């Protein structure tokens, strides 16, 4: 059973806005692949996909963008990086088209509208920004649900421990 995705399943987006990196990075560990502006978009997109709620923190707290950045930085094929960079550009373009300004300059509502548009044909993506949504979501889900927050707080996973008895019903 496949619980984790393939490395190459992870990757695709593009660059655009020029804004400050969020506070998740200490000065010493800036993004390894993304520009600070790109990183800010990725961080925001992942949090929009898996936000903090009353049950647990979201993708931002789980440092999902940091994980995506690290994987892209060491990716074997340049295409993986290019696809993400291009994808992020598409997000900005779509935002400009819909609201007249770049994604990170858009309001919270407008950002959700951009992502909603990208997710429109999720099961059968056609447009490049729709394909990018698939990559983005896959990477986010993978990064989040393999993180400490995802495993222990969100999913409340109690396994990977020594059990004296198997859980469940004995067959009679």
């Amino acid at each position, binding site marked *: 059973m496949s*619980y984790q995705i393939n490395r190459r399943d992870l990757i695709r987006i593009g660059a655009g806005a020029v804004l400050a990196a969020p506070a998740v990075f200490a000065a010493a560990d800036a993004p390894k692949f993304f520009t600070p502006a790109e990183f800010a978009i990725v961080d925001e997109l992942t949090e929009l996909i898996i936000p903090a709620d009353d049950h647990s923190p979201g993708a931002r707290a789980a440092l999902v963008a940091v994980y995506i950045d690290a994987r892209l930085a060491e990716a074997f094929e340049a295409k993986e990086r290019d696809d993400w960079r291009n994808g992020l550009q598409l997000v900005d373009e779509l935002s400009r088209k819909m609201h007249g300004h770049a994604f990170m300059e858009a309001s919270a509502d407008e950002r959700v509208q951009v992502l909603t548009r990208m*997710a429109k044909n999720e099961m059968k993506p056609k447009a490049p920004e729709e394909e990018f949504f698939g990559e983005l979501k896959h990477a986010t889900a993978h990064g989040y*649900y393999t993180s400490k927050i995802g495993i222990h707080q969100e999913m409340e996973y109690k*396994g*990977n421990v020594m*059990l004296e008895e*198997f859980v*469940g019903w004995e067959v009679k």
Partner: protein
Amino acid sequence: MFLPADKTDEVDLQKTYDAIIVGSGAGGGMAAHVLTSHGMQVLLLEAGKKLDINKELKSMEWPYDHPRRGDMPPDSHALSGREYTIRKPPYAKGSPYKHVYSYVEDGTGSDYAKNIVVDEKDNPYTGTDYAWVRARCLGGKTNIWGRLALRLSDYDFKAASRDGYGEDWPISYADISPYYDKVDLYLGISGHKENLPYLPDSLFQRAVRLNPAEVKLRESLGKMGRVLTPYRAGVTTDGLKHNKYRVHCYGRGACDRRVGGCDIHAAFDSPTGLIYPALETGNLTLRTNATVNEVTVDKDTGKASGVSFIDTDTGQTYAAKGRAVLLAASTLESARLMLLSKSSLYPNGIGNSSGHVGHNFCEHLMGPGVNGLDKEMVGKPRTLDDGRPGSFYLARFRNLEDRSQKFIRGYGFEGGSGTGMFPDNAFGTPGFGSAYKKTVRDYAGAFIGMGGFGEVLPRFDNFVELDPEVKDRWGVPVLRFHIKFGDNEKKMAKDMAESAREMFEAAGIEVLSVNDDLLTEGYSIHELGTSRMGSDPRKSVVNQFQQSHDVPNLLVVDGSTHVSASCQNPTWTIMALCWRSCDHLAEELKKGNV
């Protein structure tokens, strides 16, 4: 836990060992155990490395404690299922990646098995599409096997008599049953007694438990006369007093999160289950990094005189001598080795006067299956469904007494439900935002799925041969495949998908998806045949004691000798047959008959 130190023994090249065993997986390990127990001096040769396996597996490492969450380094590539059909073997040819691995390295936590499975770049093969998974290291594939441990019955051994296709095995269940018992007791097996004539019970230790969706399916199937039973795992669930290298299963769940493997060795693996105990007898010499490239022959007697092997690090070739040679290099590698062992006495390869070596290949087809949702479980508190070495097995029900199907033979299903560490539905649940997050959370434990394993008929024209041109990294000719599923397999696959859907619907499980596509040949990693047993030397390669008809001191003790695949997983049968044959060999050697 103490494991024997990482040392390679010096092979005494002057000495004539009582037996030389080629390969250290289920068959080779068992042969080492049985022959050393009989006091024989045994040399065990393994092509791969001796790994510090616990350092490889790290069964309880959390994903977030690994820099790539368990994935391989970036310069490594695992073949995807699609690559096996859109490209042609050798699949690693022209790949820009430094290392290329088979599909088992795709997806789950593959960094933990990268030193266990072979690099396709060093080990190419040619011919028809085939997903060939190989493990070259001490213990071979037993280090990462799926653990389902089933017995065969006379429905399998005498299948040809029942439906007229192919050949019966030269043994019946009564012949092998005592040896299944020995394997059960020596290695440990978990399961629940069902008293089925077509899926005989083992001497079970504590069974795994079922969760609500699985209980629901079991009860519904019971009304149809079909049996869903707790996973029969080749895992000791109560412990084994006679083995200091293994402890009982603690339900940590690691076995399905990774490619496989168990660093407390509750799951059977050949090194801790068989080889280390055999080393303690003082009768076993173990040489790793030794790729056997020929079975040598005594020209005067026509018997096997030993083997020639290549040191995989230095490339240097050595010869070792033995009174008997046992091949357990895996079904396809053993066939390759026999074909490589050409001499003036045996121009078609050793033991191949019948021309059947490499032929009559059979295996299990995979692909068809169903995924469903048990709505009653949505939003319920999650339980530790992965805290067990397997979930369920659904026994064969086709062509037992009623044989009205459009195909012959049968299939079973492996399946499970509930939550693991990673919520698989995170990828399939549409949308984003808090609604998405909550849906993933609420539904994670409510899914149930199963996939079929069907009997692939042995056919003479499904075969492997030596490629006349392509060689592996050590200059040894590689295998060329001529293996294709036939009409019976395609009809069976269709029925598997249809019956899977019907069984879920009958149990009130909402069907989410049904798959009826066959995966590439080889996917089940249950390759069998190629040196089948039989009593007629014109139509078979070995006798019922796995002795070559042509060369009595040459045995083949891996899956090669299976006459038909059955639909039950082969590992337990490989070991039971091997035990029986090695008892026989020891006796024959004592009598001077071999």
